[in-house]
């Protein structure tokens, strides 16, 4: 049985944040609220990372996801006037989507939960020393002898391409005549 301690309580609260925020994103009418729900959910995920002893990823989650991506989305909402055109939130096939998603969830729940049932029970998981899982280890993993140098380089090319592309697409009309 799961014992009631600080960790489990934190997990319960964070789960409410993650899932509640997620539901808020997909159901809310006002997209500015949607973006705020998204921030809430992302914050919950950052909390998970702390519980899972990945403090660096938690910091990145807050800085990159909440600090950059969520703000970008708020910009998208404002610049496309999405919060004023409230209209109908869902398309006509939303109920079909809901059924599909519920079926998929049942499949995933069976396929994911059963194989790991009982794994990671208290005491079974090796406890980490304070240093493992931090920025130094992650940085080393990215460039070390058996590390992720290639995807790291590919990601840098990808970011260049994405940046150039975003500029090309978002060019202004006046720019054309120049």
């Amino acid at each position, binding site marked *: 049985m799961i014992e009631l301690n600080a960790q489990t309580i934190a997990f319960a609260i964070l789960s409410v944040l993650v899932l509640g925020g997620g539901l808020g994103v997909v159901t809310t009418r006002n997209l500015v609220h949607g973006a705020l729900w998204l921030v809430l959910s992302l914050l919950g995920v950052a909390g998970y990372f702390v519980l899972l002893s990945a403090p660096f990823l938690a910091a990145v989650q807050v800085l990159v996801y909440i600090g950059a991506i969520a703000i970008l989305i708020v910009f998208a909402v404002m610049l496309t006037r999405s919060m004023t055109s409230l209209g109908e939130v869902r398309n006509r096939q939303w109920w079909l989507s809901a059924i599909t998603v519920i079926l998929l969830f049942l499949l995933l729940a*069976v396929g994911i939960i059963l*194989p790991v049932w009982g794994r990671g029970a208290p005491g079974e998981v090796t406890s980490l020393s304070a240093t493992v899982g931090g920025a130094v280890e992650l940085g080393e993993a990215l460039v*070390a002898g*058996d590390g992720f*140098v290639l995807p790291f380089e590919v990601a840098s*090319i990808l970011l260049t*391409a994405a940046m150039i*592309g975003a500029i090309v697409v978002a060019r202004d009309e006046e720019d054309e005549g120049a």
Partner: protein
Amino acid sequence: MTDIPVLADLNLAWTWPVVGLGLGATLLLVADLFIPRDRKQQTAWLALAILLVSFLLNLAAFPVVDSAFFGMFVVDPFSAFLNLIALTTAFISILLSVDYLQRSGMQRGEFYALILFTTAGVMLMGHANDLVVVFVSLELLSIPLYILAAFRYPDVKSSESGMKYLVLGAFASAFFVFGAALIYGATGSTSLPHIFEVVARGFAAGGAPELLLLVGTGLVLVGLGFKVAVVPFHMWTPDVYEGAPTPVTAFMSVGAKVGGFAALLRILVFALPVLSTGAVEASAWQQVVSLIAAATLILGNVVAIAQQNVKRLLAYSSIAHAGYIMMALAAAGHAGFGEQATRAALVYMLAYMFTNLGAFAVAIAIEKGDGSGSDLEQFVGLGRSRPLLAGIMAFFMLSLTGIPLTAGFIGKWLIFQVTIEAGLVPLAILGVLTSVVSAYYYIGIIVRMFLREGEGDPAAGGTGLVNGAVYLTFAGTLLPGIFPYLMTDLTRVVSTTPVGG
């Protein structure tokens, strides 16, 4: 302390076709700044030169089997063959683009750099030996394509095409990466050879594959299924293909598919061939892949009949062709047929590449500057106004149908052969039947060009470069049709043994 690797540890020697392309694309962005706005063709020449260099480097790498970047990057004939397809696709697409961009007023140097970036993504998909690399290259392949699809400015259809492609592509990537995460959870590693070992060990011990692994594989299949546009993950294809600028559609219809199938083959055939539920004969994913193949063949070919626009028609036709390649994948799921089926799929992709790009080249030759004029009715009378172009188009249509003496025939022949030998006779019969159905709409275009009376519009875009592309693809479709060994010999060295890291 960790050893920070030096350059020599990376073993870059055989990675230069890809690394050089990425580097070239980045330098091209810089060079483009110094090229005046009215002479952007020069950027295109530079891009072509970069592709050519990469192509030659890749030829040198052909028989090599090696790994680089600490086993994350494989160099083998499989990837070298895919590189040939990817580089040729990019080369022809750029030939098609130069005048097209000029006359539709979207001549911008970034276009060519983005084509090179996405080509590097396609090539990396073939080289990837790790799920993380597959994922990152999948995005390198996709993100520039989202932008290229929205490149026509200001055009509602093109912008919508880009948006749909982006939304669907991001959705598909999320599926892929969720599946990859589950595979990581099931095997404790993201490296494909390591996954192969873990699964093979479990299989040898007689255990059924982990449910987690099966679900992960299924989600990966869904994600890549979107990318290669197989039923039921195809719905975005016609709209995106129709709205995107035609040279981009041409690239997409080959490049994105080749990249997706490269990853499917790498993951399913190279890394997970022994994923079986007890029956030793076939992999657990074989039945699902067969069903997808069957549905794709039927839907793609039947719906194509109703199309009135050549880009939409070619979109459904490309769905149908993805179905034939899925047939090869299904055959590869049968124990002992992995290699033969992979070779058949490679030959098929090469033949499809030349033929499909050729068909798009002709479509571009008759399209107008504002993007209109891709109705099938445009082909009426083409046999009289441009007999040579119409004749070549007719040949492409025959090759897409799979008539003998064309490259398309060789590809289909090999795929049907391996499908029958692997015991999937009903699927092979379905393949033959749907080929017959496809003859209806392919030959419909030939009938329009030669037999229907009408005033053919003078082909607006039949300029030198486009004609060059038409002749190049014609040669690529005709010669292997007559001398099949031109294609099949290249694949003889392909093996599906995972290259250890």
